[in-house]
């Protein structure tokens, strides 16, 4: 039986708790902790689960990012990826270019059985790379997946929508699955797994080597500014009843919502 290849797209993002400083007018000081995009951890955890059910299978983590993203891929391998591919680029890219680069890197490596991603990246909040990647491959895609079951030639997924509703969708394999938070609980690596991940392969490809033409469609950051906060906190004091009365008055007179 041929090897079932599970590709997981992993983005290298600033820690959500990091202090973000804007340099110049359009980029951030990258001298902060970077880690795996949280939703991609769900994708990795699910990939490791599928590998067990679909032996022989391998999990390949793929990232477009700076050379420092190697650390993020090491974490991905400690969490279960067997090997990884880093498309090295000195700059940030929009999701149109990113999806082309990921497609090219995956297609060069092998034939995907399934591709997993996160539903969104917490830095750029694009919410779209998985659909573009799927379109580049001509594959079906679903986002915010909270349940995934592989059948013979199909993936049965449940996608969470609002108010607790879910869509139950069948997609032919291969397909692209965007992991939502409800998919699983990420399994964090043990120390031996971390040690083992250091020996696993990170194949580096220069982005230029993929020969991707600059797309006619793109988005560019013109300006990045720290979010200004112009709130001047005012204390409400007195007894509980007095505080409640002031809140009701604010809702009515200032906010005009009641």
């Amino acid at each position: 039986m041929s090897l079932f290849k599970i590709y997981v797209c992993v983005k290298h993002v600033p820690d959500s708790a990091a202090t973000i400083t804007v340099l110049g007018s359009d980029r951030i000081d990258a001298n902060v902790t970077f880690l795996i995009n949280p939703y991609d951890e769900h994708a990795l955890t699910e990939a490791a689960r599928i590998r067990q059910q679909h032996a022989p299978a391998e999990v390949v983590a793929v990232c477009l990012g700076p050379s420092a993203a190697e650390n993020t891929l090491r974490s991905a391998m400690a969490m279960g990826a067997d090997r990884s591919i880093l498309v090295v680029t000195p700059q940030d890219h929009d999701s149109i270019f990113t999806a082309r680069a990921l497609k090219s890197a995956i297609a060069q490596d092998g034939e995907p059985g399934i591709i997993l991603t996160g539903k969104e990246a917490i830095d750029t909040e694009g919410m779209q790379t998985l659909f573009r990647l799927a379109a580049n491959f001509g594959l079906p895609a679903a986002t915010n997946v909270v349940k995934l079951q592989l059948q013979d030639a199909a993936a049965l997924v449940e996608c969470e929508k609002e108010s607790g509703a879910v869509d139950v969708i069948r997609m032919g394999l291969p397909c692209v699955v965007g992991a939502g938070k409800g998919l699983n609980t990420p399994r964090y690596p043990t120390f031996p797994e971390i040690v083992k991940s250091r020996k696993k392969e990170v194949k580096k490809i220069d982005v230029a080597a993929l020969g991707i033409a600059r797309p006619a469609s793109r988005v560019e950051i013109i300006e990045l500014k720290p979010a200004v906060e112009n709130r001047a906190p005012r204390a409400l004091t007195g007894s509980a009843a007095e505080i409640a009365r002031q809140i009701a008055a604010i809702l009515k007179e200032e906010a005009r919502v009641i």
Partner: protein
Amino acid sequence: MEKVALLIEFKAGRVKKANFGMATLVRRSGKAMCAFVVNDSAAEAQAALEPYGVQQVVAIRSGGPGAAWDPARWARAIAAAMDRFGITQLVGLTTPQGRDLLPRIAAQLDAPLIMDCLEVDLDRQMVKTSRYSGKTVATIRLSGRHFIYGLRGNAVEAQKAPVAAERLSFDDTPGGDGGFEVLETRSDGGEALNLAEADVIISGGRGMKSGENFRLLFDCARLINGAAVGASRVAVDLGWVPYRMQVGQTGVKVNPKVYIACGISGSVQHFAGMKSSGMIIALNTDPNAAILAHCDYYAVADLFDVLPELKRQLTASMSSAE
């Protein structure tokens, strides 16, 4: 004249309120507007949207009579309708439905898309949106042949400007399913109001101490028109309330007129989801809680004392208003 299309979203047969802000945004640009309605009532859309200046309603029929929701097919139908009506700019909402449709349309057209826009300039194809968990605001320029925008709910205040609208229709052409098939859509009944569209959100965190105590928040929310209840991740992780109520970086991003945080410390990840709220009111027993330094009004008080009183006050102001 250049026309901008609005992707209208319905809920239970009615046009969602958030569409009105979207119509207002486009009307202010001075461009002609046409509303796309997929497999829902164009008559209801016309009646609901004419007061907001929508001049045209296009009923898109996808998948034949009685066809159920199918995001892949709908996206193809919308892209085809854009082509048919010469639309280059499409504006939708950053709701779960918008997150499922807009990126599919963008991928199909290989068009630039920015979700969760706070501002959109339809003349210059520039938007403002938050980046890095709400810590920065980015001005972004889109280039291409088509432009797609997902607007954050409540980002633009709706303003009336009545016109009469005409109605057109468009049928999609049947095709293969592309290996994508919606087997069913299941609902657990859910709550009435979606957080992302609520005008007022009352949220609870670890300070609520149990899931049952969230009743205090629901009691107050019921007394405010357009109010919903949210939660911090801790309240969700402890199993007190479902994940869909989580506000924050890895939950829902909200933009209400008023956000009331009860027993929430104000972590950066929580702030990432609610910092653009019009007004923030915090109740916390700890005078050093981070949220107290980043809000408009706060009380260093026990939520279990204040919330029952607030319920009483709201009940009183409700009966005096009637």
